């Protein structure tokens, strides 16, 4: 086991810079999730840690060693790929043993390790099968088994669950988490699914366009997003945003509705964005008036889509409220859950910023 340090890492493909100034410190035994929209560079960063891509700028260390110029096989890491990348001409057993065979590990030792991994993952009855004789979930487990037998310092996962159906994905998510709690191996896990990120991570790294937007524990990102991008990316359905201005401690939308602000947001400021999560809105006759357009029950709660002035918003309500499309209702935000962002930079503004600007 080991820590991983990514220092000021950048990536160029010829003249094109796809990544710059990435810095992440991953503690020994930590489970870190890289998350972000497609094309933001998650896989590229992971592959640079693995040694499959050259690091064109900056430094990656594993443990105490800078690994920039160390071959993948000597970095003592194991990687699980999105399409499993099982060798189709080898049985499950041979797939798992392959890396050890190449290292000329003793046969008895190989067998012992393969058996142990197979037991952990429930693969024992499948050892003699070929990958094409396995279901998606079983293939996924074999891919993990292949990583486990090597007993690496770091596990790397690149969207390992994206080819599974929804139900299996939830189950495998749990299994991976359990595996991590059991083995305590440092893990870097890539996904573009923010729910996977929230549920699995010790810490999340949110990326966009080849740069880090924010690093923090899941609830940290949820409660204190640094900027509009992170606020919108984390949470589902996404945070409601309304453009407008602050006047005398209240928020006025472009359409002229008034929304309450937390204490301390005094003064006046134009070009700000008001953010409130759907689950932090409640029905309230005295609240901001809105026109309900669609009502979607999901079981435990109801998603209500509505027009508030010129903005489309969504609220997630518990306790089966009796609203239907066409109703005129009022919404009130939980005031301590309101976020204010600067429209130009996207940065979240705290009360102190407003005083300074005023």
């Amino acid at each position: 086991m080991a820590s991983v340090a990514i220092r000021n890492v950048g990536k160029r493909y010829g003249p094109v810079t796809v990544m710059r100034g990435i810095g992440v410190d991953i503690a020994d035994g930590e489970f870190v999730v890289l998350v972000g929209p497609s094309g933001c560079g998650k896989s590229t960063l992971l592959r640079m840690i693995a040694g499959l891509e050259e690091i064109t700028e900056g430094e990656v260390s594993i443990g105490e060693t800078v690994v920039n110029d160390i071959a993948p096989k000597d970095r003592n890491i194991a990687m699980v790929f999105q399409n499993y990348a099982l060798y189709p001409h080898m049985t499950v057993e041979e797939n798992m043993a392959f890396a050890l065979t190449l290292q000329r590990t003793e046969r008895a030792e190989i067998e012992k390790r393969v058996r142990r991994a197979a037991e952990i993952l429930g693969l024992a009855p499948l050892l003699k099968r070929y990958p094409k004789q396995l279901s998606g979930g079983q293939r996924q487990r074999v891919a993990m088994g292949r990583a486990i037998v090597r007993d690496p310092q770091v596990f790397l996962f690149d969207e390992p669950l994206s080819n599974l159906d929804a139900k299996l994905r939830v189950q495998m998510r749990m299994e991976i988490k359990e595996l991590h709690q059991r083995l305590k191996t440092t893990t870097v896990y890539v996904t573009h699914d923010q729910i996977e990120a929230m549920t699995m991570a010790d810490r999340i790294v949110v990326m966009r366009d080849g740069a880090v937007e924010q690093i923090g524990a899941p609830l940290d990102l949820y409660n204190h997003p640094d900027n509009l991008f992170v606020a919108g990316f984390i949470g589902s359905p996404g945070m409601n945003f309304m453009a407008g201005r602050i006047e005398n401690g209240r928020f006025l939308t472009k359409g002229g509705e008034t929304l309450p602000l937390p204490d301390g947001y005094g003064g006046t400021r134009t070009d700000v964005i008001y953010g409130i999560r759907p689950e932090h809105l409640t029905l309230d006759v005295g609240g901001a008036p809105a026109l309900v357009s669609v009502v979607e029950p999901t079981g435990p709660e109801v998603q209500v889509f509505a027009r508030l002035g010129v903005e489309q918003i969504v609220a997630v309500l518990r306790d089966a409220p009796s609203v239907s499309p066409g109703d005129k209702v009022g919404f009130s935000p939980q005031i301590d859950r309101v976020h204010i962002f600067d429209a130009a930079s996207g940065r979240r503004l705290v009360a102190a910023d407003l005083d300074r600007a005023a």
Partner: protein
Amino acid sequence: MRSTLMKQVPLFLILLCFCIVNLTPVAWGFLTSIRQPVDAFAVPPKLIFTPTLEFHWQIWVDKGFWRFLINTAIVSVCAVTISVSIGSMAAYALSRLRSRLASGLLFSLLAMRMFPHILLAIPFFVIAQAAHLIDTYIAMILAVVALNQPFTIWLMRSFFAEVPGELYDSAVMDGCNAWQTFRRVALPIVKPGLWVTTLFSLLLAYNEFLLALVLTRTGTKTMPVAIAEYGAEDISYWSLSAAAAFGIMLPILVFMLFMQRHLVRGMAAGAVKG
């Protein structure tokens, strides 16, 4: 049910026509080989005749046709072994190279394949003569390899191109060096394709006529050249020639029967991925 039947009947008829067109010369050749030349060329065709194995006997026993078979076998097997091994390695490298150089090389190989063989046969002859290699296996093998190489490289490359890149990444992570990635991961995966390539290049080598005509004399003469010589002498030799042509087909037929399982898989592998 009905619609599949509607599709299958015309398909079957088309394939049947195709088979008839293709097999008629073979049948005609076979019939020629088992009767006297007089009967073979009778107009209208004689349907009733006494079949004879006389010409087959003559070919194999009196004329020593087996010597040409051995020559052909030596040349084909050596040439295929060399061109398929070089071809696999080159194709693998070319399928993994992501540079302009790779496609440049591939297309120059294709260009080489576009030359008419006669254009190549003459320089090959000159080279072989200068090196005192006329009528040796070496000259013939090298010439056939040269002729086959573009084909084996292109065919193998198309099979390698279908191996998902993640497998190579996985091999690198598992600790394979370049050779091990090729030998232990890539090659076993394209094995069905390897069989297809082997068969096709074997057929090319086995049937090679022009180069054999130019480069061999009595010592290393191959079957296609020998057959042509029978036919050329006199029309009454045609039955002999036909019997020899059957002799040439038999080993290939046997090989095909043995390889059938691999071949179907290999040809299917190109179309659909498992």
